[in-house]
Each structure stands twice: as C-alpha cells, then as structure tokens.
C-alpha cells in the first residue's frame, strides 16, 4: 500500500503510542523530580548529576566520589529505631573534615532534612540566607555519609538525595518537573483536541453542506452567509473571548474550536452535493419518492466521503495550532498538560532568562511534527480522492 510508504502514518502512530504508553512507564508528569531548569543529562557533563546515597540496617556507611561543584539540592530523609539508651548521629565527612547532619535520639522516629530548611542552616552555623551546599561540598573529592553510634541501630533506612543540575532526557522545567514526561503527557492532549475538534467541525460542516447543497434556497443562503461571516472574522480573538467566558476545560475547548471551524468543510461538501444533485441516479431516486434524508445519507454522503476524509485530515493542524495558541496565551486549564501550556509556562516563568531552550524545543517541535504529519496524510488522501491533483503538485 502506498500509504505505508509515507512517513506520516508511522510518525503519528509512534507519537500516539508514546502518548498512550509513555506516561504509564515514566510516571506522574506533575511530580517534582529535580531542581528547576535542570539541564538534560546528555547536555552538560560538567554539571553534577542526580545521586542517591542509601543507608540501611546492614550498610551503615555510604560514600561517593564527587567530581563537580556543589549540587543544586541536598535532602536527607529516613526512619530509624535504636536499642534502649543508645544515642547516634549521622555524619557527613569530606576532604575538609566532618559535620553532624542529624542527632538520632530516643527509641526511634523519622528524620527529614533539606538544604532549604532554615533550622538545618542554623545548625551548620550558617545564616538563614546562606546556602549550605557550599559548606557541605567545599571541593571535589571523596564524601561519606555514616551512621555513628554507641551501638548499631535496630533499624535504619536513610536516603540522601543530591539533586544535580542535570536530569533525564530533556531536563526539567521551572518547577522541577521532568520535561520529557510533560512532553509525553502533551501528546495526548494535542492529538485528542485536534482530532475531536476537527471531527466535530466535520460533522457540523457535512450537515450544513449536505443540507445547503441539497435543499438549496433559503436554507442554503442562510448557511453560506453564516459561513462567510465566520470566515471574515479574526478567529483567535473569538476563541479567546469564548475560552475566557465559558471556561477552559478540555471539552469546552473542543466545543469552541469545533463550532468555529466547520466552514471549509461545509463549502466543500456543498459544492460536491450541488454537482451530485443533478446526477441521474439522484433524480431517479427522487422520482421514486425516496425521502430526502435517505438520499442524503445513503447516496450523497458516501460519495462525499473520500473528499471529506481529506478535508478533515487537512483540518487537524489548524485545530492543533489553535489549541496550542489558546494554551500559549494562558487561556487553557492549568491542569491540562499540553504542549501549548508548556510553551506558555516557559514564556511566563523565566525559561528565557535561564536560557532553558530544552523546555522550548520539545513542545514546539512536537507541534510542528504532528501538523506536518497530518498535512502529509491529508495530501495523500486528497490525491486518492481526486487523482488529477497528482499531476499538478510539483
């Protein structure tokens, strides 16, 4: 089949699969995984990576060779249980000496330290506004996290999370969310809104086109005037006003986009219906007394279907771009993770001053790819529906 030799169906299939399965494999996109604006892992090897040091009842010591500047975050969490009367501490030993991170007292409990806590800073002898990371990582070299106590603990589980300035495939955004996960989550929204809005528009357009073309007269006049009217107006401001007033959820967006993009389809279907209306087989049906809906549904619609399919496919990029535009303007539901939303946040929350291009490129290129794929597919369907086009394309 010719279709399978084109790139677009494969690209769309791959994206759709990634959008369906990806989020399940990679985890919650909203989760904050690393400091804001962490660079992609492959980008900058001089920035510190993300590391965990783990202590357990059996391993009371863990060490690492730190070859970078201070990490962006330092968080120690865990639980412990000590024998009666024992006392212990967790210490941090580096090339320049040793620090006590936490005193473990009583029979047991949990501990949670974070480099951002003021109490922690004060305990290290710093002012509340000084970052403790310079103190904890004065220079590259071997570092050791150790349990020191009068007796071994009955139970210990500690996790020291050193968050670096690097994360994952595509780094993190301004809140420390994984850009790759956000990108995967955005596939779903873009494709869903693009397809659903276009299908709605196709439904409306086909109905209007069939009715107008077949019935003619006042119905046709009114429908076509309405189409002209909507085509003469700037679309985005209308969508903005509607999204601003009606709400910004997924289904509202689909409805709004669908209601304002049926005009092209209506014109195409109408033209086709007009040309078919006079066809002998339709005249015969009419003479036989077939009801209007029967002629429309059983005979005109199937004739119009190939052209319709192409029109719908070619319409998807428009809907996707419109959704992305609204989301970029901040007029979509903030909980709706879409590519447009990612660009909105990149623009509004300092991705520029951070020079964080890795937040910008994935959603943008995602939109371009999906649109190009649908255009390619649409051209293919168009040629199928009307072979004459093939010779005109250069």
């Amino acid at each position: 089949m010719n279709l399978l030799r084109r790139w677009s169906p494969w690209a769309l299939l791959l994206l759709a699969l990634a959008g369906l399965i990806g989020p399940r494999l990679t985890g919650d996109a909203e989760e904050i995984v690393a400091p804001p604006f962490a660079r992609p892992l492959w980008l900058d090897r001089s920035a510190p990576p993300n590391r965990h040091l783990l202590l357990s009842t059996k391993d009371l010591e863990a060490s690492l060779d730190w070859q970078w500047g201070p990490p962006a975050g330092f968080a120690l969490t865990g639980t412990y249980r000590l024998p009666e009367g024992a006392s212990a501490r967790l210490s941090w030993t580096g090339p320049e000496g040793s620090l006590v991170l936490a005193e473990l007292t009583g029979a047991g409990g949990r501990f949670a330290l974070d480099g951002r806590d003021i109490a922690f800073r004060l305990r290290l002898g710093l002012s509340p506004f000084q970052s403790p990371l310079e103190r904890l990582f004065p220079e590259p070299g071997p570092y050791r996290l150790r349990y020191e106590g009068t007796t071994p603990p009955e139970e210990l589980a500690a996790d020291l999370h050193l968050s670096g300035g690097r994360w994952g495939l595509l780094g993190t955004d301004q809140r420390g969310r994984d850009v790759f996960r956000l990108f995967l989550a955005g596939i779903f929204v873009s494709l869903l809104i693009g397809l659903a809005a276009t299908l709605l528009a196709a439904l409306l357009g086909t109905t209007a086109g069939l009715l107008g073309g077949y019935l003619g007269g006042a119905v046709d006049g009114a429908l076509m005037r309405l189409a002209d009217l909507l085509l003469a107006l700037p679309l985005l401001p209308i969508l903005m006003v509607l999204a601003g007033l009606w709400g910004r959820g997924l289904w509202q967006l689909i409805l709004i986009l669908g209601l304002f993009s049926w005009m092209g389809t209506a014109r195409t279907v109408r033209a086709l219906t007009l040309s078919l209306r006079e066809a002998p087989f339709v005249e015969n049906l009419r003479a036989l007394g077939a009801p209007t809906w029967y002629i429309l549904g059983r005979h005109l619609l199937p004739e119009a279907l190939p052209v319709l399919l192409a029109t719908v496919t070619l319409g998807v990029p428009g809907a996707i771009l419109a959704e992305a535009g609204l989301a970029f303007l901040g007029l979509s539901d903030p909980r709706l993770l879409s590519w447009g939303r990612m660009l909105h946040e990149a623009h509004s929350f300092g991705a520029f001053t951070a020079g964080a291009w890795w937040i910008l490129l994935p959603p943008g290129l995602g939109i371009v790819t999906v649109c190009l794929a649908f255009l390619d597919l649409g051209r293919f369907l168009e040629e199928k529906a009307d072979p004459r086009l093939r010779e005109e394309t250069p």
Partner: protein
Amino acid sequence: MTYWSRRLLGALTVLFFVLTLNFALFRLMPGDPVASLIDPRFSPESKEALRKAYGLDRPQAEQFLLYLKRTVTFDFGLSFISGRPVWQELRNRLPHTVALTGSALALSGLIGTFLGVTAARRRGGLLERATLTAGALSFSFPSFFLQLLLLLLLAVFWPLFPLRGSVSVPAPQGAALIADYLHHLALPVISLVLLSFGSWALYVRNLMVKILGSEPLFLARAKGLPESILLWRHAFRTALPPLLTLVLLSLPGLLSGAVITETVFSLHGVGRFLLESIQGQDYPAAGGAFYLLALVTVASNLLADAAYGMADPRIRFERERRR
C-alpha cells in the same frame, strides 16, 4: 443594487453579527449580568447608579438598542482595571497594532512576491525548492514557537534585540525614541515576516507558473519583448488581482497573529490588551477590543476588495454591468 452597496451591506451584516455576539456573550452569561458589566468592587450605591446609567434596569431588547448606539459611537464603558474609558485605552494602542501588522504584511508581501516570481522563472532551481519548503513549513509552524526561538536566540543568547516591550524604560526622547521604538518593533516584524513570506512565495510561484505557461504569455514571448516586460507587465499584472484576494484572506489571520505576537514580545497593542482584559475579567475592555479587531478586519476587507476591482478590468467591468 450596485455592487458597492451590496458589499457595504455585507460588511454591516458582519459587524451587526459581531455586536450581537458581543452583547449576548457578555450579558447572557449565568449569574448576575451586572457582575459582568460593572466592577464588582464598587459600592452598592454606585453600582445602582451605574446600573441606571448603562440602562441595565430596562428590558433586554431596549438594552440591546442602547448597546448598539453606544458601540457605534465607540462608547464601550469604563475599564475595570484602569478605570478609564475603554475607547481611550484602545485608541492609544491601535496605532501600534497597525504598525506591527501593516509593516509585517507589506514586507512579507514584497519579499514573498519577489521570491515567488523568481522561483517561477527558474523552475527546478534551488530557490524554487527552498520556496516550496518554506511555504509548506509556514502552514504547520506555530507562530509563538518561532517567536520564542527568535527571542531566545537574538535577545538572550545573542542580545541584538530587546527582550520585551514597545520602548525602553525609561523611554528616550526625540529622535532616539523613534529609533528605540523601531528597535523594539524589529524582531516582532521579522518573526511575522518569517512566518508568512513562505506561503506568499508559494502562492505567487504557483500563480506565476500557471500564467507563464498560458496563451497570452506565449504570444507576448512571440512579440520579442524583453524578459522584464514579460515578467512584470504581462505575467505579474495578471497575477495581481488574485494576490490582492490573498491579502484580503490573510487579514483575519494576521490580526489573530497580532494577539500572539504582542503577547510574546510584550508589545503595547490591541491584541495584548484583549488578552489582559480577558485574563483580568475586564469585560467592557474585552468587548471593546474584540469589536475593534473585527471592525479593522471588515474595513480592510472592503479596502482590499476595492483594490481588487481596480487591478482587474474584467472585474471592474462585471461590477459596472451588474448595476
């Protein structure tokens, strides 16, 4: 009915539709209609006074007529955010939006036409392939994505242009102000030109290829006319009327683009005013801005249509005969 009175009637219908939509959208929302027209922070007494002043105590039909009358005289009420008349705010911003879209349209039209004509003349060349690619890309490139990339490259990594605003703060005086304004306008205009010259070039190229292969051009070649006359006087003049139609068709999109462009570059203009009004639930301002954008579109449609008639004698003939 003459051609022009029909066209004018059509334009008025569009405007009437916009006004009705505006009226219905902002008033027939769930909840207290007053809440969407009068600043909720006002005291009950002043609310009551305003309610009277806006005629909100009258029946809907009468309100509609009153609304029509006010809108036609550009009385959109007071902005909730600034407290000043909406029209004053809009009038202040309109020239900036016109400067942005006008210069972008003119530049992309000129560049696109030149490239399209050249590509049509040298079929199969590198330029033609580049034109075709640029045209295809421009249909699937979100404007804001390109603009963000340009900002990142040319305002952050390599700071040739300012990152935001229509003028520097504090603004310079005299001639320096104009230079500063143009400096701020440059990147937005460049981005819009980059976004649209491709589709222009593509359209011009396709049109010119068709015309260059047509009978009149064959005869013009047989007449031994120099290449430049063939190309510009015969072929391009024939292509001009449909090109003007393209201007007509691209205007609504261009104004939509202005909203996004003004947002990305934080420019002072009607588009960003509309967005800020919607975000700030400043309904009188949003309604006014929306109406103004629609009005500009309709008016420029009429203008482009007039130009179309002037460029094509066949159309002029048709229009006069149909009187």
